């Protein structure tokens, strides 16, 4: 079975001038949910156009930490945060920050594919429409470009009016990634994006991530160690709300500095 993603040069589908380099700096970030201290003072710098994997056991704070970058935790009851998160030098937790604008810059893909109950076309066009873009030609071009980027175009080009919900799990996840790309973010957050997918769909999404890092800064939370080692440039290991080790993926997976990291990645944790 052919599983190779269609090669579409990104420069052809996205205007190179739109390429934005997003540098992330995290300084002494602490998070509480009421009295529970979920993140206990983390410093981290993430380079532009890299893939960074967050790993760690359930409840270690990696998803909470990921959701800080697009301020998704703001809606969680009892959420409180200290410290600074700067994207290209701007603290995203300053009061005057427009969260909706911020989220245009920072797209997110979730564990379970969550297409809207709309047509395939409208799913991808949705973000553009709520941004107030009405130029039909531009929307159409962008939808086609994004579907090509996620290697879904050939599979759906004759069914663009069909509901997004009719697609397979793997196709739905790629549709959600296309929807994220449509608003041209500079950072893409992924929270276990392939945990609900079969190996073939997983391979397609992984190949896509590899391709996308040319243009985007990608942060991915994963429980799959092999996935983290396959696709990421940097890996961060979290445990009990602390960042235990953060470094080049090659080093983490061949010779980690901390025993805790070694125990976790070799499956001997606890």
């Amino acid at each position, binding site marked *: 079975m052919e599983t190779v993603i269609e090669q579409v040069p990104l420069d052809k589908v996205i205007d190179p001038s739109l390429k934005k380099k997003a540098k992330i700096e995290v300084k002494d970030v602490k998070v509480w949910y009421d009295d529970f201290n979920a993140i206990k003072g983390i410093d981290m710098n993430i380079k532009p156009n890299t893939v960074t994997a967050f790993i760690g056991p359930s409840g270690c704070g990696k998803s909470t930490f990921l959701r800080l970058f697009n301020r998704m935790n703001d809606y969680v009851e009892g959420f409180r945060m200290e410290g600074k998160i700067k994207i290209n030098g701007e603290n995203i937790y300053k009061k005057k920050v427009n969260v909706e604008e911020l989220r245009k810059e920072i797209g997110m893909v979730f564990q379970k594919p969550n297409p809207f109950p709309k047509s395939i076309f409208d799913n991808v066009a949705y973000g553009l429409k709520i941004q107030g873009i009405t130029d039909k030609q531009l929307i159409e071009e962008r939808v086609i470009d994004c579907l090509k980027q996620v290697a879904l175009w050939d599979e759906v080009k004759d069914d663009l009016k069909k509901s997004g919900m009719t697609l397979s799990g793997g196709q739905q996840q790629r549709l959600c990634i296309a929807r994220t790309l449509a608003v041209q973010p500079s950072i893409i957050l992924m929270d276990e994006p392939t945990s609900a997918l079969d190996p073939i769909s997983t391979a397609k999404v992984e190949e896509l991530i590899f391709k996308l890092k040319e243009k985007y800064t990608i942060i991915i939370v994963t429980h799959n160690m092999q996935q983290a080692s396959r696709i990421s440039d940097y890996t961060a290991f979290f445990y009990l709300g602390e960042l235990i080790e953060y470094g080049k993926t090659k080093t983490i997976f*061949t*010779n980690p500095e901390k025993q805790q990291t*070694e125990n976790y990645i*070799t499956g001997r944790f606890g």
Partner: protein
Amino acid sequence: MANAQYQRDLLNESGAEMLAICTSQLEKSKDAFLNHDSDLAEEVILNEVRVNALDLRIEKNCEKFLALYNPVANDLRFIMAIRKINFDLERIADHAYSISKYVVEVDKKIPPHLFEVLQFHTMYDTIVKMLENIAEAYENKDVKTARKVFQKDKVLDKINTDSFAVLEIEIKKDNNIISEALLLFSVIKKMERVGDLIKNIAEEIIFYIDAEVLKHKKKK
């Protein structure tokens, strides 16, 4: 991971078994050669089958471990090291086998004084000590003991380098010992190679424990 740990323990035991068999093969080949004991040499030749079988078993289990458990970090270094150690040990056993073949096939007793002038006993004793160091380092994951073999290998290199000139002198003294001298020269070359293989094993043990690559490192 419990199963993976079990498989790793089994591989570790097989590695120790291979080390013990190959050390025994080499020691027996030494005694067979020094005493021209063809019975003992035959035993080494027969035991080669066991070495080969264990070599294949380790190779197969390494492949299985890599395929089924996707090892990383220490597990990955262990599996990489054990494969190379196994390869080197099998080569050491091959040398023991060829030396024993000489004993069986060549009906010539080496004049005892040649062993003396060539420091042949020192060479063999050094190799045995190196193998003891390796066994201890492997069992106790002891990098310091593994490093001891590097200095000892220099003794072997020196004896090997000197052997040509020493034998030249001896042959000039007595033309009748040419074939014995050539045989001895060939065995010394094999022993020197065994020393290099033991050094490789020490490097692999250090790599697996400390993640330090010593291969091709220039001496400072």
